[in-house]
């Protein structure tokens, strides 16, 4: 009954002791996954994904989902 959480790039370095799994009973949106995973406030420009698809912070999540948080994209 858990949701996998990942942080990338500068976020991964900034978040102290991030958890990698969140109890799905405690989080029904991406924003709630963030709150369960870290005490830090969500940065203004943070991007997120659910199951490898870009999403919004109010996107619904469920047991088994993979949620990721990352800073603005700088590839190319």
């Amino acid at each position: 009954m858990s949701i996998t959480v990942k942080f990338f790039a500068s976020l991964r370095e900034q978040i102290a002791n991030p958890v990698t799994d969140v109890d799905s009973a405690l989080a029904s949106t991406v924003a709630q996954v963030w709150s369960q995973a870290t005490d830090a406030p969500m940065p203004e420009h943070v991007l997120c994904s659910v199951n490898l698809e870009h999403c919004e912070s109010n996107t619904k999540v469920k047991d088994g989902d993979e949620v990721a948080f990352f800073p603005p994209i700088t590839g190319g």
Partner: protein
Amino acid sequence: MPVKIAPKPFNPAAEQAEFEQSLTPGSFGATANFVGTMRNYNEGDSVTGMALEHYPGMTEKELDAIIDDAKKQWDILDALIVHRVGQMHPGDPIVLTAVWSAHRGAAFEACRFLMEALKSRAPFWKKETLADGKHRWVERNTSGEA
């Protein structure tokens, strides 16, 4: 495979030539490509190295979707994206986008689209090493106007 993540230095011309072998000679009249190369400076500072991070799985999926979008929008035969990840040095190719089509308009426009879409949608992040040995994350991609 029209999308490739390269953990080692790659040769854009060789990648393009290899991919082109899957196309019938004479079937296309236009090929547009773009190569992004690591510069030795950025925002006024000398840059000596760069680490490129990605999100395995999502990055490939997003690049595939970008090529699909281009194929819906333009009449093109095929497209190729190769993107480097890992530790690199000035002069190293970072990204190749290439498009094959019958006529030049579609090739030029789709090639530009691939780069702009990739820079806004495909999860990659750059961390620069400066001349003094310090590291910094690149904060934001410039628009295509820059």
